Every structure is written in C-alpha cells, then in structure tokens.
C-alpha cells in the first residue's frame, strides 16, 4: 500500500513539478 502510494504521488507530482519549474523560469523574465 505504501509503495503504491509513493508511485501514485510521484506519477502526478513529477509532471506538476516540471510544469511549475518551467513556469517559474518563464516568470523570471518579468524581473
């Protein structure tokens, strides 16, 4: 159950983190 939970959270967390990092990189152009 625990391993399944980690895999599920990673599966959604990694793409989201990637998107946030890309957006932050873009947002830095404002300053």
């Amino acid at each position, binding site marked *: 159950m625990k391993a399944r*939970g980690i895999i*599920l959270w990673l*599966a959604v967390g990694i*793409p989201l983190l990637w998107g946030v990092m890309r957006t932050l990189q*873009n*947002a830095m152009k*404002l300053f």
Partner: protein
Amino acid sequence: MASSFLNRESTIAPAGYNRFLVPPAALAVHLSIGQVYAFSTFNLPLTKILGVTHTVPGDWNLKEIGWIFSIAIAILGVAAAVFGRWVERVGPRKSMFVGALCFGGGFIVSAIGIHYHALWLLYLGYGVIGGCGLGICYISPVSTLIKWFPDRPGMATGMAIMGFGGGALIAAPLSVILMSHFKTAVSNGVLETFVTMGVIYFMFTMIGVYSVRLPAEGWKPEGWTPPLKPPALVTQAQVAVDAAWRTPQFWLLWVVLCMNVTAGIGVLSQASPMIQEIFTGRVTPQMAAGFVGLLSLFNMLGRFFWASASDYIGRRNTYFVFFALGILLYSTVPSIGSAGSIPLFVAAFVIILSMYGGGFATVPAYLRDVFGTMHVGAIHGRLLTAWSAAGVLGPVLINYIRQYQIDRGIPKAQAYSVTMYIMCALLLIGLICNFCMRAVDEKYHYRAPGKNT
C-alpha cells in the same frame, strides 16, 4: 470484465484503505483536463496549417480559432450540469473513463479536422466532444474526495482543483516541445501534437481511473466524529439535486461564483496586452509572458491555499475575503498604474488570481456545507454553468470597455481604469449575495421514501 471494473461497486474501498491514495487519482484527471487553459499555445500555429511557416490565403484566422476554446469552456459547464446526476449514479471510475475517452477523442477528431482542413471538426472535436470530457472529468473526482475527507473537505477539493490550474503549467511547455519535435518542411507539427496529446492525456487519466476508490457507506476517518454543533451554514441533512436548485442558496452561490470568476477570467484573458499597455515601453512581450506565467502559478497555488484555509475560517468568510480584498485591490490598480509601479501591479494581480483559483476550489466544499454530500457532484455540475456565463462576461467586459475608452480618445495606459471599477461593482454584488447566505430551509431536506421525518 472491463465493465465490472468500471462499475461503482468495484470502486468501494476495502476496510483500512489509505484515503491519501485517492487525491493522486483526482490530480491525474485534473492535471490532464487543465490542458484547456493552455489551448492558446495552439492559436498561432493553427493559423499556419497550410502555409506551415506563415499564414497563406485559405488558412484559418485567430477569430475563427478563438471559438474552439470558447465552445470547449461553454460545453464544460453544460456537460457538468447535464451529466452530474449520471456521474453520481455510475460512480467516479466509469465517469472518469468516459470523460477521458471524450477528452482524448476530442484531440483525435480535431487532428482529423486539421488533416482535412475542416474547422468544424475542431469545433466538434476539441470544442463539443472534448468539452463534454472536460465537464465530466471536472466533477467526477470532486464529490469522491469530499466523501473521503469530511474533516477537511476544502483541503481535499483544493488539492484536486489545484490540478486543473497546474494542468496548464504542464501543457503549455509540453505543447511547444511537441510541436517543435514534430515540425517538418510540410507540417508545423500541430496535427501530430494533437494525436500525441490525445493519447498522453488518455493514458494519464487512466492513473485516476485505476486508483480511484469510494469510501464504504457510513465510513468516516478514524477518530473523527462530526461536530455536535456544526457552524451556522453547515448542514447535517441532505438536499437532492432537484430540490437544491430550487433554493435561493443555490442561486446566491451561482452569482457568488459567477462574480468571482468574471473578475479573474477577464484579467487572465487580457493579462499580456494589459501590462504592456499600462506600462508602455517598460514591459516587453517576453516580460508580459512571464507575467502570464506568474498569474497561472498563483491561480494554481490559490486553489490549494484558499480552499484549505476555508476549513479553518469557514466558507462564507473565505468568500468575504475574496470579495473585500478583491474590491480593495481592483480599486487601487489604476493608482498603481499611474504611479508606474510594476512590482505593486504584479503583486496585486497575483493575489487577485490566487482568489480566482480559490473561488473554484472552495465552492465544492461550500456546496457540501449547504446541501450535504448526497448529490454534491451533481449540484456542483449545475453550479458550473456560472463559469460558462462568466467565461463570456469577463473577457467581453474587459475587451469592449477598453475599446470604448480608446475610441473616446483615452490613452491606452488609462483605458483599463473604468474596467477595474466595474470589476469592483461586480465583486460588491458577489459580496452581498455571499452575505445573504443562510442555512437551507428544512422543507428542502431529503427524506428517504416512506420516512416522514
């Protein structure tokens, strides 16, 4: 076999199931459908389907392409309202699966439309079929999470709906990368990107389909007991969907959501030209793109932050903050613009956009407080028609009033001031409606057939 896997009964969780395995299912679905917010990345490439590198006669124009997104958002609200009861009946797994088929299928139909250069197929594919997928997928996981987290409904729905905001952050760079990868001498890569995205999003939504579970009847978190004396607006009773929308509370909440969304969506739709025009010569298109990115980020973060905060300060108080703070910020924006302070301008709008996202994420928990959990998904679906209305009202207000001001000779930098004051008036209407919210009259409470009390 596959049919029984999708049935509601197959999704009932066994005893001892860890409820924190359910939010990733909801996130997988919302991260996928959140792509719709990044559809504008396809706008320019779709005007160069025939010319590949530039627009040639026969290519579609931006005005025609703009309708694809508008249709999708309008159908989202309609589908959520129409299919809400069905989603409650068949359960989250089957509805997510059907929603994924529609959303992924919408991309494929649109790709066929690009191949034959038939714009109506894009309206039908991404707009109508994809829009149905958006509506069904949007409401499916929300009521499930509310049932799993009766102690923290705001945080739970905030987590899921945060995914809808986050989906755009993934889809925007992903679309650019895919179009660049598939670009050839005879294709600008949009068709191939549509097919790839249709498959990717279908597969990603399957994570949610596979892992979603419903709690067993009567389940509650270990050690948690419902408060003996709930806050004034929180009901222990249930209101059926057909009774709910006959209550004044439903329509007050409809206006509350509509006003909150109108104020935010108008800014989102015009953020890039607005900051460039208000700070003429000081903000480049690249910097404006950074501003749009920052707004999207705070739109996402606000969903989790405000919805979680609403568990502590109450739903009505949270909306009071949205409206009161919104009025304060919108009314000071013209002065900030005149003063030429870009950091203050950005700070005001990221807070406004966080409250825009927060409004979406807090409303399912507000509905649960007022109408109970029985039909919360279906009621939420019907309430989302307010989003469709705001999707038209917000951009129209910003665009038309700005143009009217410019036509009257007002400099572009000041053309947004009147709009900001109109947004204040809209937020004031929302504030009053939110203030009028009371507990639902007992005559609307659901009574099981054969029971008189």
